[in-house]
């Protein structure tokens, strides 16, 4: 499995006259572990929605390994190697864990093959076990705890065998142990060469997982660099002041210790 | 002359359809809910009016004067509509993650349709009954054309009521609250609109409109059966879609148009063909221009 390089150039998007993404351009390098951060309303989730095809872009290009994918249909993008999770859990509430996860590999299976074939079930179970979810295969997801559902979303996205895995706040709502498990899983994913793009508010998580940080504010790029540099950048500090300034500062003190 | 009379007949039928179409469009426009109990309320009011005013062997044969019977008929339908509200719309507020479960109120309203229709059959049987006003001649004759007075009254009343309704929606505080709910029920709740107290108003109005239409229909055609609601409702739904969901004036225009189409189709091709033009038209509009003539596209897509 190989990662891919995602690049955005001059991307614009507005909703009813409100510009949400404004001439945005940045590159997520092949095999990198990139974090996309910014204050609330900066347009992070919109970037995910534009890349995965939920909305069409108004202007600019989104390309994967140099190929323009902004013209590919939403259902076709997963075939180009893009898969994602969602900020608010978007699992299929009436399907079991295993069925939800199988949706991830749906695009690469023939329509009339049995979903419950032995080989298919075994490979899915292995993926679940790798994420520590082996105990819940047959259960309806709506009744499972939040942290478990959050991880099922990651496994579903992974089973699509993506070249770039986009996770929208994967650590939100997880306790420390769960968050560490998730990070370990993502490190294993990254070791397989898959490019990671993560939207995350938890800077502690970002600093330990990611090697590159992209900061947005009002739909524009305001900073790009390493997790260490991001705290010293005046533009970033200003963007966060009054919103998440305390989070950044406390994170700085944590690092100083 | 023949076709002038057809035109009048079509408009007279259309007047009643417009009434029912307005009732449908109000619940869809305000609450985004296709209320299948409207035909039941329509029939219930007409049957109650007949039962109370006629003398005979049946239950509740009180021999009341027609206006008292009609008033009680309207009251019964309005109370029934409130009961329906309790078990249908209240559950719209339950949000589920998928498509078919939004059908909940629709299913409940279908359940009520069955309950009321069979309650009436159990009480009074399914035979057609005569419902007549005590006046000698109910028709106006001029220039060789016949115009039914109840029909004329029905059309006039429909237009007057819709005019009053749209005025109230614009001006009154209940009207403003209703429009807020139609826009977004959650936001309306946050803004302090008491949804649970305002929504029953829509159902009261729906009950009143359906009941008036049913009684006028009964007097106009002098016959009532437990099944009169079904055919009228289907035509009224076509009228509503034609006018655009949620648009009261559109419902009036749509109802009149369907009345005309129906009368002309029957006179041209015979009664056997009657289903095809109306339903074919509905199917065609839904596929080609689902917003109707004057409708808003937002309505009727998400929930049922």
């Amino acid at each position, binding site marked *: 499995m190989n990662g891919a390089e995602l690049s955005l150039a001059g991307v614009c998007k507005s909703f009813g006259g409100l510009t949400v993404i404004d001439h945005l351009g940045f590159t997520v390098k092949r095999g990198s572990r990139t974090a996309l951060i910014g204050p609330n309303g900066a347009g992070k989730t919109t970037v995910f929605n534009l890349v*995965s095809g939920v909305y069409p872009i108004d202007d600019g290009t989104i390309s994967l390994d140099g190929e323009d994918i902004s013209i590919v249909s939403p*259902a076709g993008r*997963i*075939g180009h190697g893009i*898969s*994602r999770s969602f900020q608010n859990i978007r699992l*299929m509430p*009436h399907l*079991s864990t295993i*069925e939800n996860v*199988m*949706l991830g590999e*749906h*695009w690469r*299976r023939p*329509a*009339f093959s*049995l*979903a419950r074939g032995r080989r298919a079930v075994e490979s899915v179970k292995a993926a679940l076990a790798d994420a520590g979810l082996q105990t819940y295969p*047959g*259960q*309806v997801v709506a*009744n499972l705890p939040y942290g478990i559902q959050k991880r099922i979303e990651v496994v*579903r996205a992974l089973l*699509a065998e993506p070249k770039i895995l986009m996770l929208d706040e994967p650590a939100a709502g997880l306790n420390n142990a769960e968050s560490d498990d998730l990070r370990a899983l993502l490190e294993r994913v990254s070791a397989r060469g898959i490019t990671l793009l993560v939207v995350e508010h938890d800077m502690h998580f970002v600093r330990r997982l990611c090697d590159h940080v992209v900061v947005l504010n009002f739909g524009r790029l305001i900073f790009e660099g390493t997790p260490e540099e991001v705290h010293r950048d005046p533009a970033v500090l200003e963007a966060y002041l009054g919103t998440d300034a305390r989070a950044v500062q406390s994170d700085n003190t944590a690092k100083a210790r | 002359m023949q076709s002038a009379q057809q035109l009048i007949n079509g408009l007279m039928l259309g007047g009643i359809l417009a009434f029912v179409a307005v009732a449908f469009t109000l619940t*869809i426009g305000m609450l*985004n809910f*296709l209320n299948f109990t409207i035909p039941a309320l329509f029939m219930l009011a007409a049957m109650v009016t007949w039962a109370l005013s006629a003398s005979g062997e049946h239950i509740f044969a009180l021999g009341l004067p027609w206006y008292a019977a009609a008033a009680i008929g309207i009251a019964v339908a309005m109370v029934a509509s409130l009961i329906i509200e309790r*078990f249908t719309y209240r*559950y719209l507020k*339950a949000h*589920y993650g998928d*498509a*078919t*479960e939004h*059908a*909940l109120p629709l*299913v409940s309203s279908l*359940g*009520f349709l*069955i*309950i*009321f229709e*069979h309650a009436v059959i*159990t009480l009074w049987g399914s035979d057609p009954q005569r419902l007549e006003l005590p006046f000698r001649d109910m028709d106006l004759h001029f220039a060789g054309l016949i115009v039914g007075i109840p029909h004329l009254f029905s059309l006039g009343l429909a237009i007057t009521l819709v005019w009053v309704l749209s005025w109230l929606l614009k001006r009154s505080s209940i009207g403003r609250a209703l429009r807020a709910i139609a826009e977004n029920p959650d936001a309306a709740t946050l803004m302090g609109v008491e949804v649970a107290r305002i929504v029953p108003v829509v159902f009261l109005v729906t009950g009143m409109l359906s009941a008036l239409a049913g009684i006028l229909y009964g007097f106009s055609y002098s016959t009532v059966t437990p099944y009169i609601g079904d055919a009228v409702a*289907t035509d009224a739904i076509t009228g509503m*879609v034609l006018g655009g969901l949620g648009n009261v004036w559109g419902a009036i225009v749509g109802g009149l148009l369907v009345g005309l189409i129906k009368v002309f189709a029957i006179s041209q091709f015979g009664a*056997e*063909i009657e*289903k*095809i033009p109306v*339903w074919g038209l*509905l*199917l065609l509009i*839904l*596929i080609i221009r689902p917003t109707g003539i004057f409708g808003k596209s937002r*309505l*009727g*897509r998400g*929930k049922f």
Partner: protein
Amino acid sequence: MSGYMSGVLAVLLINMVIAYSVFLPAAAGLLNLGAAGFVLIGGYTAGGLTSRAGWPLVPAILVAGLFAGVVAFVLAFPILRTRGVYMVLATFAFAEVVGGIYLNIPSLGGATGLSVSTYAGLPVIIPTTVCVVAFVAWLLSTRLGLAMRAAHDDENVSLLFGVNLRMVQVAAFTAGGALGGIGGALLVHQFNFIDVQTTGVLFSIYVLLYVLIGGTQTAWGPFAGALFFTVVPEILRTMSKLDPSMKFLEAGRFIVFGIAVVLIMVVRPEGLITRTLIEKVQGSLRRLAARETAA
């Protein structure tokens, strides 16, 4: 088996086949209030083939299913452009148009209806129903079935995971139409008669209620729904005959039916049979089995 019992069983099984015809689109998140349309198409096609063209029964049933499926396929593309209330109304209008068309075909009996002499008894109905249920169970267990159920829960996310939403919905609607045609073919040969009144305005409503009351999450839903709403009215009718004081149930049984619909929607809004219910039953069975092995 008495004639009465086999009659009730035949009606029950036919109702189940027709319920599955509405279940397939519903499982994919599409409400079809036009079951009567496909039932009429299947009934008139099969009835016409056996009575007018002298076909044997089984091929006539198959061709009826096929023809209804083709109609459903052609209809699916325009119908699927509509959503929500519009789709409910469009499918309902379709059924009425079909009724109107058959009313005006004199060679198939027109307003007087179509009488057929070939009889389909339980020896035909039982295997057909088994095949239909097996087909639905198989379809749901394929990737396509998984995609259908995913589309039911969340269309947008399904799309992002590469589900060809249009294809899945057309497939569900088409397969449902074909099953409706088969149901209609059985119906006409069970009663030796069909006319447009066979499927009145309430017919499609009842079938949709079977499915939504039974539950759209599992293939057991329409089974339970059709069973509940065929057997309960029959029991009420039998009671009304046994005891003169229960005479009111004769006509009143439909009131009980309506009240049951309203109450079930209050108590079990997702239908009688849900995934969670099955999970609970399986859990307690497993505990029971564990206790027995321990003892």
